[in-house]
Protein backbone atom coordinates (compact mmCIF):
# COMPACT_ATOMS: atom_id res chain seq x y z
CA UNK A 1 0.00 0.00 0.00
CA UNK A 2 1.02 3.57 -0.54
CA UNK A 3 -0.44 6.83 0.64
CA UNK A 4 0.03 10.40 -0.47
CA UNK A 5 0.64 12.74 2.44
CA UNK A 6 2.15 16.22 2.51
CA UNK A 7 4.36 16.37 -0.62
CA UNK A 8 5.29 12.67 -0.73
CA UNK A 9 4.00 9.20 -1.57
CA UNK A 10 4.93 6.77 1.20
CA UNK A 11 5.08 3.00 0.95
CA UNK A 12 3.74 1.19 3.99
CA UNK A 13 2.81 -2.36 4.88
CA UNK A 14 0.71 -3.76 7.70
CA UNK A 15 0.75 -7.13 9.41
CA UNK A 16 -1.48 -8.51 12.13
CA UNK A 17 -5.16 -7.65 12.46
CA UNK A 18 -6.09 -4.74 14.71
CA UNK A 19 -9.47 -6.11 15.77
CA UNK A 20 -9.51 -9.74 16.90
CA UNK A 21 -12.65 -11.76 17.61
CA UNK A 22 -12.68 -12.64 21.30
CA UNK A 23 -15.87 -14.21 22.58
CA UNK A 24 -18.66 -11.69 22.23
CA UNK A 25 -16.38 -8.70 21.59
CA UNK A 26 -13.78 -7.47 19.14
CA UNK A 27 -10.54 -7.03 21.07
CA UNK A 28 -8.38 -4.06 20.11
CA UNK A 29 -4.67 -4.59 19.70
CA UNK A 30 -2.14 -1.76 20.01
CA UNK A 31 -0.25 -0.53 16.96
CA UNK A 32 3.54 -0.51 16.63
CA UNK A 33 4.99 1.69 13.90
CA UNK A 34 8.47 0.53 12.93
CA UNK A 35 11.00 3.07 11.64
CA UNK A 36 14.00 1.55 9.91
CA UNK A 37 17.65 2.49 10.04
CA UNK A 38 20.01 4.13 7.61
CA UNK A 39 18.97 6.57 6.47
CA UNK A 40 18.84 5.19 2.98
CA UNK A 41 17.87 1.65 3.99
CA UNK A 42 14.27 0.37 4.06
CA UNK A 43 11.74 -1.50 6.17
CA UNK A 44 12.69 -4.95 4.86
CA UNK A 45 15.25 -5.43 7.63
CA UNK A 46 12.38 -5.81 10.11
CA UNK A 47 11.03 -8.81 8.23
CA UNK A 48 10.46 -11.50 9.13
CA UNK A 49 11.63 -11.12 12.75
CA UNK A 50 9.07 -8.49 13.82
CA UNK A 51 6.10 -10.43 12.46
CA UNK A 52 6.35 -12.51 15.65
CA UNK A 53 4.79 -9.53 17.47
CA UNK A 54 1.52 -9.73 15.52
CA UNK A 55 -0.17 -11.73 18.27
CA UNK A 56 0.03 -8.72 20.60
CA UNK A 57 0.05 -5.78 18.17
CA UNK A 58 -0.69 -4.60 14.69
CA UNK A 59 2.60 -3.82 12.98
CA UNK A 60 2.93 -0.89 10.57
CA UNK A 61 6.09 -0.92 8.46
CA UNK A 62 7.02 2.07 6.38
CA UNK A 63 9.81 3.22 4.11
CA UNK A 64 10.59 6.78 5.12
CA UNK A 65 10.82 9.60 2.60
CA UNK A 66 13.69 9.05 0.16
CA UNK A 67 14.01 5.37 1.07
CA UNK A 68 12.96 2.01 -0.30
CA UNK A 69 9.69 2.08 -2.19
CA UNK A 70 8.65 5.55 -1.02
CA UNK A 71 8.96 8.69 -3.10
CA UNK A 72 12.32 10.44 -3.06
CA UNK A 73 10.87 13.91 -2.75
CA UNK A 74 13.00 17.01 -2.63
CA UNK A 75 16.44 16.06 -1.19
CA UNK A 76 16.52 19.31 0.76
CA UNK A 77 13.67 17.80 2.82
CA UNK A 78 15.63 14.72 3.84
CA UNK A 79 15.63 16.05 7.39
CA UNK A 80 14.61 14.67 10.79
CA UNK A 81 11.83 17.21 11.23
CA UNK A 82 10.32 16.22 7.88
CA UNK A 83 10.64 12.48 8.50
CA UNK A 84 9.03 12.90 11.93
CA UNK A 85 6.16 14.94 10.52
CA UNK A 86 5.69 12.35 7.76
CA UNK A 87 5.24 9.60 10.33
CA UNK A 88 2.92 11.72 12.46
CA UNK A 89 0.87 12.64 9.39
CA UNK A 90 0.70 9.02 8.26
CA UNK A 91 -0.65 8.01 11.67
CA UNK A 92 -3.13 10.86 11.68
CA UNK A 93 -4.33 10.11 8.14
CA UNK A 94 -4.91 6.43 8.91
CA UNK A 95 -6.58 7.13 12.26
CA UNK A 96 -3.80 5.48 14.25
CA UNK A 97 -4.04 7.06 17.68
CA UNK A 98 -1.27 6.79 20.26
CA UNK A 99 0.81 4.10 18.58
CA UNK A 100 4.05 2.72 19.89
CA UNK A 101 6.86 4.19 17.81
CA UNK A 102 9.77 1.82 17.40
CA UNK A 103 12.95 3.38 16.02
CA UNK A 104 16.04 1.40 15.13
CA UNK A 105 19.30 3.35 14.86
CA UNK A 106 18.51 6.23 12.45
CA UNK A 107 14.84 5.31 12.96
CA UNK A 108 15.44 6.15 16.62
CA UNK A 109 16.51 9.70 15.71
CA UNK A 110 13.21 10.07 13.83
CA UNK A 111 11.26 8.51 16.70
CA UNK A 112 12.80 10.92 19.23
CA UNK A 113 12.22 13.89 16.92
CA UNK A 114 8.59 12.80 16.55
CA UNK A 115 8.16 12.37 20.30
CA UNK A 116 9.32 15.94 21.00
CA UNK A 117 7.63 17.59 17.99
CA UNK A 118 4.33 15.72 18.45
CA UNK A 119 4.27 14.79 22.13
CA UNK A 120 0.57 13.95 22.00
CA UNK A 121 1.06 11.28 19.35
CA UNK A 122 3.05 8.33 20.69
CA UNK A 123 1.61 6.07 23.35
CA UNK A 124 5.06 4.66 23.91
CA UNK A 125 8.54 4.96 22.48
CA UNK A 126 10.89 2.07 21.83
CA UNK A 127 14.40 3.25 21.04
CA UNK A 128 16.70 0.52 19.87
CA UNK A 129 20.43 0.99 19.32
CA UNK A 130 20.29 4.69 18.70
CA UNK A 131 21.67 8.02 19.81
CA UNK A 132 20.52 11.58 20.38
CA UNK A 133 23.64 12.94 18.67
CA UNK A 134 26.32 11.32 16.58
CA UNK A 135 29.63 10.80 18.36
CA UNK A 136 32.10 9.53 15.78
CA UNK A 137 34.96 9.87 18.27
CA UNK A 138 33.28 7.31 20.53
CA UNK A 139 32.47 5.08 17.57
CA UNK A 140 36.06 5.08 16.32
CA UNK A 141 37.32 3.96 19.72
CA UNK A 142 34.93 1.00 19.72
CA UNK A 143 35.75 0.08 16.12
CA UNK A 144 39.41 0.01 17.11
CA UNK A 145 38.68 -2.14 20.14
CA UNK A 146 36.59 -4.60 18.11
CA UNK A 147 38.43 -4.59 14.77
CA UNK A 148 41.85 -3.12 15.35
CA UNK A 149 43.61 -0.14 13.87
CA UNK A 150 42.53 -0.99 10.32
CA UNK A 151 38.83 -0.95 11.22
CA UNK A 152 39.31 2.40 12.89
CA UNK A 153 40.99 3.81 9.76
CA UNK A 154 38.28 2.52 7.44
CA UNK A 155 35.57 3.94 9.68
CA UNK A 156 37.39 7.25 9.97
CA UNK A 157 37.72 7.49 6.18
CA UNK A 158 33.99 6.88 5.66
CA UNK A 159 32.86 9.37 8.28
CA UNK A 160 35.37 11.90 6.99
CA UNK A 161 34.09 11.64 3.41
CA UNK A 162 31.04 9.44 2.89
CA UNK A 163 31.13 8.36 -0.77
CA UNK A 164 30.99 5.23 -2.90
CA UNK A 165 34.63 4.28 -2.32
CA UNK A 166 34.77 4.80 1.42
CA UNK A 167 31.36 3.15 1.82
CA UNK A 168 32.43 0.00 -0.05
CA UNK A 169 35.34 -0.47 2.32
CA UNK A 170 33.14 0.40 5.30
CA UNK A 171 30.62 -2.27 4.27
CA UNK A 172 33.42 -4.79 3.90
CA UNK A 173 35.42 -4.03 7.05
CA UNK A 174 33.09 -2.25 9.51
CA UNK A 175 29.62 -3.69 8.84
CA UNK A 176 30.73 -7.14 10.05
CA UNK A 177 31.62 -5.48 13.35
CA UNK A 178 28.11 -4.02 13.79
CA UNK A 179 26.61 -7.33 14.86
CA UNK A 180 27.59 -10.61 16.45
CA UNK A 181 25.12 -12.22 14.07
CA UNK A 182 25.62 -10.25 10.87
CA UNK A 183 22.77 -10.10 8.38
CA UNK A 184 22.92 -12.85 5.78
CA UNK A 185 23.95 -11.84 2.25
CA UNK A 186 20.36 -12.69 1.28
CA UNK A 187 18.93 -10.27 3.84
CA UNK A 188 21.32 -7.56 2.65
CA UNK A 189 20.24 -8.07 -0.97
CA UNK A 190 16.59 -7.60 0.05
CA UNK A 191 17.28 -4.00 1.07
CA UNK A 192 16.90 -1.13 -1.37
CA UNK A 193 19.69 1.31 -0.53
CA UNK A 194 19.67 5.00 -1.41
CA UNK A 195 23.36 5.80 -1.08
CA UNK A 196 22.91 9.41 -2.19
CA UNK A 197 20.69 10.01 0.83
CA UNK A 198 22.99 8.14 3.19
CA UNK A 199 26.09 10.05 2.05
CA UNK A 200 24.31 13.39 2.02
CA UNK A 201 22.80 13.02 5.50
CA UNK A 202 26.07 11.94 7.11
CA UNK A 203 28.46 14.30 5.33
CA UNK A 204 30.37 16.57 7.70
CA UNK A 205 28.27 19.64 8.47
CA UNK A 206 25.00 17.98 7.43
CA UNK A 207 22.16 17.20 9.81
CA UNK A 208 23.26 13.62 10.52
CA UNK A 209 26.46 15.04 11.98
CA UNK A 210 25.08 18.08 13.76
CA UNK A 211 21.71 17.08 15.19
CA UNK A 212 21.46 16.97 18.96
CA UNK A 213 18.18 16.01 20.60
CA UNK A 214 19.51 15.70 24.15
CA UNK A 215 18.23 19.04 25.39
CA UNK A 216 14.76 18.36 24.02
CA UNK A 217 14.27 14.82 25.34
CA UNK A 218 12.79 16.15 28.57
CA UNK A 219 9.74 17.07 26.44
CA UNK A 220 8.98 13.38 25.79
CA UNK A 221 5.69 12.68 27.55
CA UNK A 222 5.23 8.94 27.00
CA UNK A 223 6.90 5.89 28.54
CA UNK A 224 10.13 4.89 26.78
CA UNK A 225 11.89 1.57 26.42
CA UNK A 226 15.56 2.05 25.59
CA UNK A 227 17.51 -0.93 24.26
CA UNK A 228 21.28 -0.83 23.84
CA UNK A 229 24.12 -3.29 23.21
CA UNK A 230 27.10 -2.98 25.51
CA UNK A 231 29.54 -3.28 22.60
CA UNK A 232 27.65 -1.26 19.98
CA UNK A 233 30.36 0.31 17.80
CA UNK A 234 28.30 3.04 16.17
CA UNK A 235 25.68 4.18 18.67
CA UNK A 236 27.74 3.44 21.73
CA UNK A 237 26.62 2.57 25.21
CA UNK A 238 27.65 6.07 26.34
CA UNK A 239 25.23 7.47 23.74
CA UNK A 240 22.42 5.36 25.15
CA UNK A 241 23.26 6.41 28.71
CA UNK A 242 22.94 10.03 27.60
CA UNK A 243 19.45 9.35 26.22
CA UNK A 244 18.41 7.69 29.48
CA UNK A 245 19.74 10.65 31.46
CA UNK A 246 18.01 13.21 29.25
CA UNK A 247 14.52 11.66 29.37
CA UNK A 248 12.14 12.77 32.14
CA UNK A 249 12.90 10.96 35.38
CA UNK A 250 10.98 7.75 35.88
CA UNK A 251 9.73 7.45 32.29
CA UNK A 252 12.52 5.35 30.78
CA UNK A 253 13.12 1.65 31.10
CA UNK A 254 16.75 1.16 30.08
CA UNK A 255 17.89 -2.33 29.09
CA UNK A 256 21.56 -2.92 28.42
CA UNK A 257 22.38 -6.10 26.53
CA UNK A 258 25.76 -7.51 27.46
CA UNK A 259 27.66 -9.12 24.59
CA UNK A 260 25.51 -7.31 22.03
CA UNK A 261 26.35 -4.74 19.43
CA UNK A 262 24.19 -2.65 17.06
CA UNK A 263 20.60 -3.92 16.82
CA UNK A 264 19.84 -6.02 19.88
CA UNK A 265 16.81 -7.56 18.14
CA UNK A 266 19.29 -9.14 15.74
CA UNK A 267 22.05 -10.05 18.19
CA UNK A 268 19.80 -11.26 21.00
CA UNK A 269 16.24 -11.75 19.73
CA UNK A 270 15.54 -14.32 22.45
CA UNK A 271 16.17 -11.64 25.08
CA UNK A 272 15.02 -8.51 23.22
CA UNK A 273 11.60 -9.57 21.96
CA UNK A 274 10.25 -10.71 25.35
CA UNK A 275 11.25 -7.31 26.79
CA UNK A 276 9.51 -5.47 23.93
CA UNK A 277 6.40 -7.60 24.39
CA UNK A 278 6.35 -7.01 28.12
CA UNK A 279 6.74 -3.23 27.64
CA UNK A 280 3.95 -3.01 25.05
CA UNK A 281 1.60 -5.09 27.15
CA UNK A 282 2.28 -3.35 30.45
CA UNK A 283 1.98 0.18 29.00
CA UNK A 284 -1.25 -0.81 27.25
CA UNK A 285 -2.66 -2.39 30.42
CA UNK A 286 -1.69 0.60 32.56
CA UNK A 287 -3.46 2.96 30.21
CA UNK A 288 -6.56 0.81 30.13
CA UNK A 289 -6.59 0.58 33.92
CA UNK A 290 -6.24 4.36 34.13
CA UNK A 291 -9.21 4.78 31.81
CA UNK A 292 -11.31 2.42 33.88
CA UNK A 293 -10.32 4.39 36.97
CA UNK A 294 -11.46 7.62 35.35
CA UNK A 295 -14.72 6.05 34.27
CA UNK A 296 -15.71 4.57 37.62
Amino acid at each position, binding site marked *: *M*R*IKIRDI*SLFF*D*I*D*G*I*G*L*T*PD*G*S*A*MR*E*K*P*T*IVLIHGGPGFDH*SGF*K*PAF*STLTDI*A*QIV*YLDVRGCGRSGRGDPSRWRLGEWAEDVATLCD*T*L*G*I*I*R*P*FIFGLSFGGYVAMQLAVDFPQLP*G*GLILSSTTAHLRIDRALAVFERLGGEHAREVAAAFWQTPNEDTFCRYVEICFPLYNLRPAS*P*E*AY*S*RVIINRELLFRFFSPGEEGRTFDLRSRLREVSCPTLLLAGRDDPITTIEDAQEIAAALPAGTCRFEIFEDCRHGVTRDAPERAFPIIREF*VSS*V*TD*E*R*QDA*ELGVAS
Partner: protein
Amino acid sequence: MESRDKCLSNPSPIGGCREMRIRLKTGVSLFFDVEGAKLEAHGSVMRNKPTLILLHGGPGFDHAQMKPEYSPLATQAQLIYIDHRGHGRSDDGDPDQWSLERWGDDILDFCEALEIVDPIVLGLSFGGFIAQAYATRHPEHPRALILSSTSARLSRERIYAAFESLGGTEARRVAEQFWGGNSSGSAMEEYLRVCLPLYRRLRAEKGDRRARQIFRAAPVSKFGGPRGESMSFNFLPVLHELRCPTLVIAGAADPVTTIADAREMAAAIREDLRRLVVVPGAGHPVIWDDPEAELRAIDRFLREIRSGTVSGAH
Protein backbone atom coordinates in the same frame (compact mmCIF):
# COMPACT_ATOMS: atom_id res chain seq x y z
CA MET B 1 -15.76 11.32 11.01
CA GLU B 2 -17.82 10.40 14.03
CA SER B 3 -15.52 7.55 14.97
CA ARG B 4 -12.39 9.68 14.78
CA ASP B 5 -13.92 12.30 16.97
CA LYS B 6 -14.86 9.65 19.47
CA CYS B 7 -11.27 8.44 19.56
CA LEU B 8 -9.83 11.88 19.97
CA SER B 9 -12.20 12.93 22.70
CA ASN B 10 -11.37 9.79 24.66
CA PRO B 11 -7.76 9.56 25.77
CA SER B 12 -8.12 5.87 24.89
CA PRO B 13 -6.71 3.36 23.90
CA ILE B 14 -3.00 3.58 24.09
CA GLY B 15 -1.20 1.86 21.29
CA GLY B 16 -3.79 2.90 18.80
CA CYS B 17 -7.43 3.52 18.42
CA ARG B 18 -8.45 0.47 16.50
CA GLU B 19 -10.25 2.38 13.87
CA MET B 20 -7.74 2.44 11.08
CA ARG B 21 -9.44 4.24 8.28
CA ILE B 22 -8.84 6.07 5.04
CA ARG B 23 -10.67 9.07 3.64
CA LEU B 24 -11.82 8.52 0.06
CA LYS B 25 -12.01 11.23 -2.58
CA THR B 26 -15.75 11.55 -1.90
CA GLY B 27 -14.93 12.67 1.64
CA VAL B 28 -16.27 9.46 3.19
CA SER B 29 -13.86 7.58 5.46
CA LEU B 30 -13.92 3.80 5.40
CA PHE B 31 -12.73 1.60 8.25
CA PHE B 32 -10.30 -1.10 7.21
CA ASP B 33 -8.23 -3.77 8.89
CA VAL B 34 -5.29 -5.73 7.49
CA GLU B 35 -4.04 -9.24 8.07
CA GLY B 36 -0.74 -10.48 6.67
CA ALA B 37 2.08 -8.46 5.14
CA LYS B 38 2.03 -7.56 1.46
CA LEU B 39 5.80 -7.86 1.08
CA GLU B 40 7.52 -10.87 2.59
CA ALA B 41 11.17 -11.73 2.97
CA HIS B 42 11.82 -14.62 0.62
CA GLY B 43 15.43 -15.60 0.10
CA SER B 44 17.25 -12.74 -1.57
CA VAL B 45 14.10 -10.87 -2.62
CA MET B 46 11.02 -9.30 -1.11
CA ARG B 47 8.07 -11.25 -2.49
CA ASN B 48 4.80 -9.50 -3.31
CA LYS B 49 1.69 -11.32 -2.24
CA PRO B 50 -1.65 -10.55 -3.89
CA THR B 51 -4.11 -8.29 -2.08
CA LEU B 52 -7.44 -9.88 -1.18
CA ILE B 53 -10.18 -7.41 -0.26
CA LEU B 54 -13.02 -8.91 1.79
CA LEU B 55 -16.50 -7.41 1.44
CA HIS B 56 -18.83 -8.36 4.26
CA GLY B 57 -22.44 -9.38 4.03
CA GLY B 58 -25.54 -7.69 5.35
CA PRO B 59 -26.70 -5.10 4.86
CA GLY B 60 -26.48 -3.76 8.39
CA PHE B 61 -23.66 -5.95 9.71
CA ASP B 62 -19.89 -5.39 9.55
CA HIS B 63 -16.55 -6.94 8.66
CA ALA B 64 -16.21 -8.73 12.01
CA GLN B 65 -18.46 -11.49 10.64
CA MET B 66 -15.55 -12.58 8.41
CA LYS B 67 -13.12 -13.15 11.27
CA PRO B 68 -11.55 -15.52 11.97
CA GLU B 69 -12.68 -17.88 9.20
CA TYR B 70 -10.77 -16.19 6.38
CA SER B 71 -7.57 -15.68 8.42
CA PRO B 72 -5.81 -18.80 7.06
CA LEU B 73 -5.71 -17.09 3.65
CA ALA B 74 -3.30 -14.48 5.07
CA THR B 75 -0.40 -16.79 4.27
CA GLN B 76 -1.25 -16.54 0.58
CA ALA B 77 -2.50 -12.96 0.31
CA GLN B 78 -2.64 -9.73 2.24
CA LEU B 79 -6.21 -9.62 3.55
CA ILE B 80 -7.97 -6.27 3.77
CA TYR B 81 -11.29 -6.12 5.60
CA ILE B 82 -13.51 -3.12 4.89
CA ASP B 83 -16.70 -1.85 6.51
CA HIS B 84 -18.97 -0.55 3.75
CA ARG B 85 -20.15 3.03 4.07
CA GLY B 86 -23.08 3.21 6.47
CA HIS B 87 -21.82 0.07 8.20
CA GLY B 88 -19.73 -0.85 11.22
CA ARG B 89 -17.01 1.70 11.91
CA SER B 90 -17.20 3.49 8.55
CA ASP B 91 -18.78 6.86 7.87
CA ASP B 92 -22.40 7.10 6.80
CA GLY B 93 -21.94 9.76 4.17
CA ASP B 94 -25.27 10.81 2.72
CA PRO B 95 -27.72 7.89 3.18
CA ASP B 96 -29.41 8.90 -0.07
CA GLN B 97 -26.26 7.67 -1.79
CA TRP B 98 -26.39 4.18 -0.34
CA SER B 99 -26.63 2.00 -3.42
CA LEU B 100 -24.81 -0.97 -4.90
CA GLU B 101 -23.22 1.38 -7.45
CA ARG B 102 -21.91 3.70 -4.74
CA TRP B 103 -20.76 0.87 -2.47
CA GLY B 104 -19.05 -0.68 -5.51
CA ASP B 105 -17.37 2.57 -6.52
CA ASP B 106 -16.16 2.95 -2.93
CA ILE B 107 -14.06 -0.19 -3.49
CA LEU B 108 -12.39 1.44 -6.49
CA ASP B 109 -11.90 4.69 -4.57
CA PHE B 110 -10.48 2.77 -1.61
CA CYS B 111 -7.94 1.05 -3.86
CA GLU B 112 -6.99 4.37 -5.44
CA ALA B 113 -6.50 6.03 -2.05
CA LEU B 114 -4.07 3.32 -0.94
CA GLU B 115 -2.63 2.63 -4.41
CA ILE B 116 -3.78 -0.98 -4.35
CA VAL B 117 -3.52 -2.47 -7.84
CA ASP B 118 -4.80 -5.78 -9.19
CA PRO B 119 -6.82 -6.69 -6.10
CA ILE B 120 -8.63 -9.96 -5.73
CA VAL B 121 -12.06 -9.02 -4.38
CA LEU B 122 -14.18 -11.43 -2.37
CA GLY B 123 -17.82 -10.55 -1.81
CA LEU B 124 -19.80 -12.48 0.76
CA SER B 125 -23.59 -12.52 0.29
CA PHE B 126 -24.62 -8.81 0.19
CA GLY B 127 -20.90 -8.09 -0.24
CA GLY B 128 -21.13 -10.19 -3.40
CA PHE B 129 -23.76 -7.80 -4.79
CA ILE B 130 -21.28 -4.98 -4.16
CA ALA B 131 -18.45 -6.98 -5.72
CA GLN B 132 -20.57 -7.48 -8.85
CA ALA B 133 -21.41 -3.77 -9.01
CA TYR B 134 -17.73 -2.86 -8.65
CA ALA B 135 -16.44 -5.42 -11.15
CA THR B 136 -19.06 -4.85 -13.85
CA ARG B 137 -18.59 -1.07 -13.62
CA HIS B 138 -14.77 -1.34 -13.57
CA PRO B 139 -14.02 -4.63 -15.35
CA GLU B 140 -10.31 -3.91 -15.82
CA HIS B 141 -9.69 -3.19 -12.15
CA PRO B 142 -9.85 -6.51 -10.27
CA ARG B 143 -7.29 -9.24 -10.72
CA ALA B 144 -9.96 -11.80 -9.81
CA LEU B 145 -13.35 -12.07 -8.13
CA ILE B 146 -14.69 -14.49 -5.57
CA LEU B 147 -18.48 -14.47 -5.27
CA SER B 148 -19.25 -16.37 -2.12
CA SER B 149 -22.81 -17.36 -1.09
CA THR B 150 -24.32 -14.65 -3.22
CA SER B 151 -26.53 -14.10 -6.25
CA ALA B 152 -26.96 -11.77 -9.21
CA ARG B 153 -30.50 -10.88 -8.10
CA LEU B 154 -32.82 -11.76 -5.23
CA SER B 155 -35.38 -14.24 -6.55
CA ARG B 156 -38.30 -13.98 -4.13
CA GLU B 157 -40.01 -17.14 -5.30
CA ARG B 158 -36.90 -19.24 -4.78
CA ILE B 159 -36.36 -17.74 -1.33
CA TYR B 160 -39.97 -18.32 -0.24
CA ALA B 161 -39.95 -21.89 -1.52
CA ALA B 162 -36.66 -22.61 0.22
CA PHE B 163 -37.85 -21.27 3.58
CA GLU B 164 -41.12 -23.15 3.28
CA SER B 165 -39.31 -26.41 2.69
CA LEU B 166 -36.97 -25.76 5.63
CA GLY B 167 -39.31 -24.12 8.14
CA GLY B 168 -42.87 -24.66 6.95
CA THR B 169 -45.54 -22.09 6.17
CA GLU B 170 -44.67 -19.90 9.15
CA ALA B 171 -41.12 -19.45 7.87
CA ARG B 172 -42.51 -18.72 4.41
CA ARG B 173 -44.87 -16.10 5.81
CA VAL B 174 -42.10 -14.35 7.73
CA ALA B 175 -39.79 -14.47 4.71
CA GLU B 176 -42.53 -13.08 2.44
CA GLN B 177 -43.14 -10.24 4.86
CA PHE B 178 -39.45 -9.30 5.14
CA TRP B 179 -38.37 -9.83 1.54
CA GLY B 180 -41.63 -8.34 0.31
CA GLY B 181 -40.36 -4.93 1.41
CA ASN B 182 -41.59 -4.69 4.99
CA SER B 183 -38.39 -3.53 6.61
CA SER B 184 -40.04 -2.32 9.80
CA GLY B 185 -38.34 -3.15 13.06
CA SER B 186 -40.85 -5.84 13.92
CA ALA B 187 -40.63 -7.58 10.54
CA MET B 188 -36.85 -7.51 10.74
CA GLU B 189 -36.91 -8.85 14.28
CA GLU B 190 -39.27 -11.65 13.32
CA TYR B 191 -37.12 -12.54 10.33
CA LEU B 192 -33.97 -12.63 12.43
CA ARG B 193 -35.76 -14.86 14.97
CA VAL B 194 -37.54 -17.26 12.62
CA CYS B 195 -35.59 -17.35 9.36
CA LEU B 196 -31.99 -16.57 10.30
CA PRO B 197 -31.57 -19.85 12.21
CA LEU B 198 -32.55 -21.67 9.00
CA TYR B 199 -29.60 -20.17 7.13
CA ARG B 200 -27.22 -22.63 8.71
CA ARG B 201 -27.57 -26.27 7.67
CA LEU B 202 -24.40 -27.94 8.99
CA ARG B 203 -23.18 -26.09 12.08
CA ALA B 204 -25.21 -24.13 14.57
CA GLU B 205 -24.18 -20.52 15.05
CA LYS B 206 -22.66 -19.98 18.45
CA GLY B 207 -24.22 -16.57 18.89
CA ASP B 208 -20.97 -14.73 19.58
CA ARG B 209 -20.64 -13.64 15.99
CA ARG B 210 -23.77 -11.50 16.22
CA ALA B 211 -22.51 -9.85 19.39
CA ARG B 212 -19.13 -9.06 17.83
CA GLN B 213 -20.71 -7.08 15.02
CA ILE B 214 -22.06 -3.57 15.11
CA PHE B 215 -25.59 -3.81 13.73
CA ARG B 216 -27.08 -0.76 12.02
CA ALA B 217 -30.69 -0.97 10.91
CA ALA B 218 -30.68 2.04 8.57
CA PRO B 219 -28.97 0.38 5.59
CA VAL B 220 -31.28 -2.64 5.95
CA SER B 221 -34.33 -0.38 5.68
CA LYS B 222 -32.81 1.51 2.81
CA PHE B 223 -31.77 -1.54 0.79
CA GLY B 224 -34.64 -3.85 1.75
CA GLY B 225 -37.50 -1.35 1.97
CA PRO B 226 -40.45 -1.20 -0.42
CA ARG B 227 -38.58 1.02 -2.86
CA GLY B 228 -35.24 -0.50 -1.94
CA GLU B 229 -32.68 -1.77 -4.39
CA SER B 230 -33.08 -5.35 -3.18
CA MET B 231 -36.33 -5.44 -5.15
CA SER B 232 -34.82 -4.59 -8.46
CA PHE B 233 -31.10 -5.18 -8.78
CA ASN B 234 -30.07 -7.70 -11.39
CA PHE B 235 -26.53 -8.27 -12.60
CA LEU B 236 -27.40 -11.11 -14.99
CA PRO B 237 -27.46 -8.88 -18.09
CA VAL B 238 -24.04 -7.34 -17.32
CA LEU B 239 -22.00 -10.20 -15.88
CA HIS B 240 -20.66 -11.05 -19.34
CA GLU B 241 -18.66 -7.83 -19.06
CA LEU B 242 -16.41 -9.29 -16.37
CA ARG B 243 -12.82 -9.61 -17.57
CA CYS B 244 -11.22 -11.44 -14.67
CA PRO B 245 -11.25 -15.01 -13.34
CA THR B 246 -14.29 -15.43 -11.13
CA LEU B 247 -14.95 -18.10 -8.56
CA VAL B 248 -18.54 -18.74 -7.50
CA ILE B 249 -18.95 -20.64 -4.21
CA ALA B 250 -22.45 -21.85 -3.31
CA GLY B 251 -24.03 -23.92 -0.58
CA ALA B 252 -26.28 -26.62 -2.00
CA ALA B 253 -28.83 -26.02 0.78
CA ASP B 254 -28.64 -22.19 0.91
CA PRO B 255 -32.19 -20.83 1.39
CA VAL B 256 -31.50 -17.18 0.57
CA THR B 257 -28.97 -17.12 -2.24
CA THR B 258 -30.01 -20.46 -3.59
CA ILE B 259 -28.09 -22.95 -5.64
CA ALA B 260 -30.30 -22.05 -8.62
CA ASP B 261 -29.24 -18.41 -8.15
CA ALA B 262 -25.58 -19.41 -8.07
CA ARG B 263 -25.92 -21.49 -11.22
CA GLU B 264 -27.60 -18.73 -13.19
CA MET B 265 -25.02 -16.22 -11.94
CA ALA B 266 -22.13 -18.45 -12.97
CA ALA B 267 -23.79 -19.16 -16.33
CA ALA B 268 -23.87 -15.42 -17.07
CA ILE B 269 -20.07 -15.14 -16.70
CA ARG B 270 -17.73 -15.89 -19.60
CA GLU B 271 -17.06 -19.60 -19.69
CA ASP B 272 -13.27 -19.24 -19.81
CA LEU B 273 -13.29 -17.09 -16.67
CA ARG B 274 -15.74 -18.81 -14.36
CA ARG B 275 -15.35 -21.49 -11.76
CA LEU B 276 -18.34 -22.84 -9.82
CA VAL B 277 -17.86 -24.77 -6.59
CA VAL B 278 -20.99 -26.21 -4.96
CA VAL B 279 -20.55 -27.29 -1.35
CA PRO B 280 -22.86 -30.21 -0.55
CA GLY B 281 -25.26 -29.68 2.34
CA ALA B 282 -24.01 -26.20 3.15
CA GLY B 283 -26.40 -23.35 3.95
CA HIS B 284 -25.79 -19.62 4.08
CA PRO B 285 -23.03 -18.65 4.06
CA VAL B 286 -20.71 -21.52 3.22
CA ILE B 287 -17.83 -19.86 5.08
CA TRP B 288 -19.64 -20.36 8.40
CA ASP B 289 -21.27 -23.68 7.60
CA ASP B 290 -18.33 -25.48 6.00
CA PRO B 291 -15.29 -23.17 6.20
CA GLU B 292 -12.83 -25.89 5.23
CA ALA B 293 -14.64 -26.46 1.93
CA GLU B 294 -14.70 -22.76 1.10
CA LEU B 295 -11.03 -22.26 2.01
CA ARG B 296 -10.06 -25.28 -0.12
CA ALA B 297 -11.93 -23.83 -3.09
CA ILE B 298 -10.31 -20.41 -2.66
CA ASP B 299 -6.87 -21.91 -2.13
CA ARG B 300 -7.19 -23.87 -5.38
CA PHE B 301 -8.47 -20.79 -7.21
CA LEU B 302 -5.58 -18.61 -5.97
CA ARG B 303 -3.12 -21.25 -7.14
CA GLU B 304 -4.80 -21.36 -10.55
CA ILE B 305 -4.50 -17.60 -10.85
CA ARG B 306 -0.85 -17.69 -9.84
CA SER B 307 -0.04 -20.43 -12.31
CA GLY B 308 -2.03 -18.74 -15.08
CA THR B 309 -4.38 -21.70 -15.56
CA VAL B 310 -7.18 -19.18 -15.50
CA SER B 311 -6.06 -15.75 -16.57
CA GLY B 312 -8.70 -13.47 -18.05
CA ALA B 313 -7.65 -10.10 -19.38
CA HIS B 314 -4.55 -9.80 -17.17
